[in-house]
């Protein structure tokens, strides 16, 4: 009996003197795995148009019904997305979401994926319902949305359609080309840049609720 006790004590002593392996979150954070299913991201095309075409397939696929999509018709002259419709409202209730990734699978344009962010704790219940502003990917020259959202996220490689919609020529490239010629900073709205891109956070509107 004594031999076993001493053996056990030796093991705990060895472990007690070795380095703890705990990751001291939030000071140190391990990078999420590539297919980590965390908070959702709404993606854009390279020219800033939203990938979401407001088809509501994600809402239909969602087993817990935590997605609400409020679609609207695109203005042909100043489209938000390359399709006929775009999501005017896009809300996800994180209290209900089970992070199954079915929304990403169902999406025909790979507009929604599940990103790396996993800390959603909040003191206010209203804050756990994410709006489009919070979900939408940041885009250069515009205000960044909350958190690092420029990740591909899980579900980005689902290849659900086989081909994605053609968003057309990049207004940003045209804008930059124009800026090179005139050597002066253009105003937003010039050169085909969509001004009223929904989802861009206006700092004055950020403190909602």
């Amino acid at each position, binding site marked *: 009996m004594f031999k076993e006790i001493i053996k056990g*004590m030796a093991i705990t002593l060895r472990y007690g003197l070795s380095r703890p392996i705990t990751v001291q979150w939030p000071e140190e954070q391990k990078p999420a795995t590539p297919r980590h299913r965390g908070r959702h991201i709404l993606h854009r095309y390279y020219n800033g148009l939203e990938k979401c075409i407001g088809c509501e397939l994600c809402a239909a696929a969602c087993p817990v019904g935590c997605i609400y999509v409020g679609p609207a018709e695109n203005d042909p002259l100043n489209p938000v997305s390359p399709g006929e419709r775009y999501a005017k409202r896009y809300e996800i209730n994180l209290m209900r979401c089970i992070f199954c990734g079915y929304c990403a699978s169902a999406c025909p344009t790979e507009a929604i994926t599940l990103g790396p962010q996993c800390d959603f704790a909040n003191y206010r219940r209203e804050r756990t319902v994410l709006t489009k502003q919070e979900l939408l990917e940041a885009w250069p020259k515009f205000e960044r949305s909350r958190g690092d959202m420029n990740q591909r996220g899980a579900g980005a490689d689902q290849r659900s359609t086989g081909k994605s919609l053609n968003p057309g020529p990049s207004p940003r490239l045209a804008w930059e080309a124009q800026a090179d010629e005139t050597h002066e900073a253009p105003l937003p709205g010039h050169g085909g840049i969509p001004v009223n891109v929904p989802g861009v956070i206006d700092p004055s509107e950020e403190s909602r609720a």
Partner: protein
Amino acid sequence: MKASQYLLDSGLRVGNGVAADPVLVFAVKAAIVVLGLTLAAAFLTWAERKVAGRIQLRYGPNRVGPYGLFQPIADVLKLLFKENLAPATRDKLLFLVGPSLAVGTAILAFAVIPLSAVNHGIGAGYDLHWDISHLNIGLLFILAVTSLGAYSIFLGGWSANSKYSLLGGLRSTAQLISYEMAVSFSLIGVVILTGSLDLEKIVTQQNHAWFVVMQPLAFLLYFTGALAETNRAPFDLPEAEQELVAGYHTEYSSLRFGLYFLGEYVNVITVCAIATTLFLGGWLPIVPFLSFIPGVLWFIGKVAVLILVVMWIRWTLPRLRYDRLMSLGWKVLLPLGLLNIVITGAVVAFQAA
């Protein structure tokens, strides 16, 4: 002489020759010891969690204050502000007596433990003893008072009128009966060697060699029994959380639960202090040339090391099964204790002859 008269006399002997007011001295000493023990017990919870964490490759509490040192304060505040729930069918008086006894007996036993050598004749022939009350039957007092601690658990378990509490209380009683004998027998070896129950004399007689060298078996027996007495793993059957929810303190909440918690840790300190006094040379330094370090520090250091060992054991060994515990107490520890007494007595008798 009446026992009460005796207790009074031996207590007042502190002021032998007098100059300082004995009552004041008592009060100051008692305040220091009680506050010190309570604070130490609070921070032992921190130490325990740190030890547990490191053994399990974690850090333990490290969020509140530097190295998580303010964690006990946060815990105490939490306990203070919790609702004081109690079962309606409880025994109202005994439900209160239980937790009070838990802390009371643990602190009471500390009253006779000398923290350092006597300071002779400071201030007009007054002898400063480094214990609250200098009893020449200190060891007997300790045995009597620590056994009372079992009442706190049993009364608490019984008065709550809940089956898990009752089972915990019953286990504690059975455990105490099977261990108290072994503990007492292990101490008799020391008493035979010194011929005294006075803890100060017991310590001063360890000048040449600590009693752990002469009585290694007794030390092991006492330490095992002490673990059982403090209801800590591997002998935490009365509160076995996997079997009995929380055992005897299942129905306790808020500050009453806090008292049990405090009692457990004060008990650990007391038990380790007794082991230090009897077997590890109390305030004596390891080697004579280190005697420039004050005795109190030696004492506290030794107690701290023992407490660390107790925690280390708790987070290593699994809980004993109930029947194994009983058979270990009655069939192994008790005969070994008797054997130790016989051998020690024989050796002492031969040396005297």
